[in-house]
């Protein structure tokens, strides 16, 4: 199907946004594109909420003693921040928004395998989020998002609703994973072999495998904590023969693969963005594709590196430490291949590309500090300090959120048919990257100096770096705010985008912007690989 020519025609034909009007048509939709847009609204709201709590934390840490809250409230703040950011944003965001929107388009399919279940996951997200947040407001758990026993089973604060909310959110995640795996296996257009799949699909596939296999373990473990708190059976209580470290094993068996649920979709987006903005095929398609599976697989073997200082045996710690280093190999393969893709490419520096550069830089430092942390003898010094906090924020905010923003800016014209202001986008990207560095590099230094995490007061020698970190956080928040503003206003004021403003070879760009309700009038037959930039360029229709 050839892209339509006149931009006015795009807005005169029914696309998925205006095909049916009214709230009810949205709440009962089975269209994966509408579901993706609903997810976008929800995860952005969650991000704002989680970010708000982050700012409160940083304000509290402006002074060594109490600043704006007491210790108990501070504990609730970082628990809220962690629970919301991880379960309400990081896990669902990229699969829920870009996976839902683009997986069928990239496969030449009309929808995902189970559209009604897809809609159900949105409702599960809402219900789980509502219960968890309500629980926090009620009496607010102060255990941290990691719910370690025996504190979580004996604390006086309300834990059960948060556990239940997380359980329900986990169900949403599982069903999304099932949906995507079945879609990729059964709804590929004729001619779309596995080796012709876009790399985005490979990484989403690997993510979905982790979602399906790991999340049930978390669900059951959190349920056990709730049962333990309610009835006191003693499954994690040493007085009854229980082992508190067993909880940590079970929790991290999910939560370590969970970080790959967060970062693999980011890598999925980046593989697409780098090819479009270097106008070149990825270097080493097979290596990148299979390294996604490698991360998913080996990522299950390393959870014990969260338990190095817990009482876990040195033998097990040694095994986990070595395996943790192996998982870095797959990420390294991807980083080398993305970089090699840039070599002799025709680079177009736009906002998505700037975010890609930020992603690469943050992934490298986050990943390398991760390898350092997997060295048991070093982790003994850094565990539960701000070094670890900085490490995972480099990956989660630095890498994953950069990738989310890269994807958002790359696919915005496709999803909504509008272009945003490139100048504001570049300015915001620079602000975000600078603000991020200003926030988290001081935290590496603080952690190395020995400042513990989750402490609301600290000795005076840590004061200056904490102030620096808070200043950086303000800059970062300001950058995010700017992004929100110009993206939302572009929906009204933005220039109408053509079908392919970036001149990308990705298959999803063979549709109007925004796409029609029915993705393709007839099932396409795929005869080429995923991107094929070596072919003569198609007409890149730029925004008018």
């Amino acid at each position, binding site marked *: 199907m050839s892209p339509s020519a006149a931009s006015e025609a795009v807005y005169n034909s029914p696309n998925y946004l205006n095909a049916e009007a009214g709230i009810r048509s949205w709440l009962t939709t089975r269209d994966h594109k509408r579901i993706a847009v609903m997810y976008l609204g929800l995860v952005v709201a969650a991000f704002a909420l989680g970010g708000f709590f982050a700012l409160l934390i940083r304000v509290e840490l402006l002074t060594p003693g109490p600043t704006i809250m007491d210790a108990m409230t501070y504990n609730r703040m970082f628990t809220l921040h962690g629970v919301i950011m991880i379960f309400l944003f990081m896990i669902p965001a990229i699969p829920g928004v870009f996976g839902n929107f683009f997986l069928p388009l990239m496969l030449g399919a009309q929808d995902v395998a189970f559209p009604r279940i897809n809609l159900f996951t949105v409702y599960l997200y809402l219900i789980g989020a509502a219960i968890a947040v309500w629980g926090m407001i009620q009496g607010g758990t102060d255990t941290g998002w990691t719910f370690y026993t025996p504190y979580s089973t004996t604390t006086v604060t309300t834990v059960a609703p948060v556990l239940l909310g997380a359980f329900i959110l986990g169900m949403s995640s599982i069903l999304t994973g099932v949906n995507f795996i079945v879609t990729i296996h059964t709804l590929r257009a004729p001619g779309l072999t596995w080796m012709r799949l876009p790399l985005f699909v490979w990484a989403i596939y690997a993510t979905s495998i982790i979602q399906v296999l790991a999340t049930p373990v978390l669900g059951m473990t959190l349920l056990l904590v709730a049962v333990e708190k309610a009835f006191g059976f003693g499954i994690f209580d040493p007085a009854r023969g229980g082992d508190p470290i067993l909880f940590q094993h079970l929790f991290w068996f999910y939560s370590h693969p969970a970080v790959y649920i967060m970062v693999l979709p980011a890598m999925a987006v980046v593989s697409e963005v780098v090819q479009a903005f270097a106008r070149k095929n990825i270097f080493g398609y097979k290596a990148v594709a299979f390294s996604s599976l490698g991360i998913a697989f080996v990522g299950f073997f390393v959870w014990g590196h969260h338990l190095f200082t817990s009482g*876990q045996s040195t033998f097990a710690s040694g095994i986990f430490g070595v395996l943790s280093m192996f998982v870095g190999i797959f990420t390294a393969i991807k980083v080398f291949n993305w970089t090699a893709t840039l070599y002799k490419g025709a680079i177009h520096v736009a906002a998505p590309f700037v975010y890609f550069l930020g992603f690469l830089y943050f992934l490298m430092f986050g990943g390398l500090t991760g390898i350092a942390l997997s060295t048991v003898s070093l982790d003994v010094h850094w565990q539960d300090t701000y070094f670890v906090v900085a490490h995972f924020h480099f990956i989660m905010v630095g890498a994953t959120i950069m990738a989310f923003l890269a994807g958002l800016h790359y696919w915005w014209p496709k999803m909504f048919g509008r272009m945003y202001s490139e100048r504001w986008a570049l300015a915001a990207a620079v602000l975000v990257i600078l603000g991020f560095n200003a926030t988290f590099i001081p935290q590496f230094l603080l952690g190395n100096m020995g400042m513990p995490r989750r402490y609301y007061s600290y000795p005076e020698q840590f004061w200056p770096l904490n102030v620096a970190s808070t200043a950086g956080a303000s800059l970062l928040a300001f950058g995010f705010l700017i992004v929100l503003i110009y993206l939302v206003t572009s929906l009204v004021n933005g220039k109408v985008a053509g079908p392919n403003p970036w001149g990308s070879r990705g298959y999803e760009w063979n549709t109007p912007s925004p796409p029609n309700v029915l993705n393709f009038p007839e099932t396409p037959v795929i005869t080429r690989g995923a991107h094929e930039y070596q072919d003569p360029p198609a007409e890149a229709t730029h925004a008018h």
Partner: protein
Amino acid sequence: MEAKAHAHKEFGPLQYVIVWGALLVLTAITVAVWKTHWSLGTRVTVALSVATVKAGLVALFFMHLWEHGGVNRLVMATSLLFVALLIGLVIADNATRFEYANPPYSSSWTRAPFEDAAPPLQEQPPPVEGVPEAAPH
């Protein structure tokens, strides 16, 4: 065309009853093992092996993995791999810990940790009192 292929491989009531019979026999074997005087290790190995065979029969024949397996077999096999991974590595941890990092009076505690601990600890872990006579052991 597919129907013929399926009719060829599709099982009928007789095959299902045969599988059912095999499962009953295997159940009887499992219960019989309980009555023996073999060591715990042997009994665990035999019981779990028999259970695995039973599970295999159910999965392959009742759940049709034999007929239209393919990717679904891979799904089940992969999840079993991760089951083994979780259980294996966690036990490896408990089995190699510093003895008092395990719960009190568990199998790694070989002696009383401190002399002046209160309440006073016995030399050996306290015995399990009151073994019921119902057991043939």
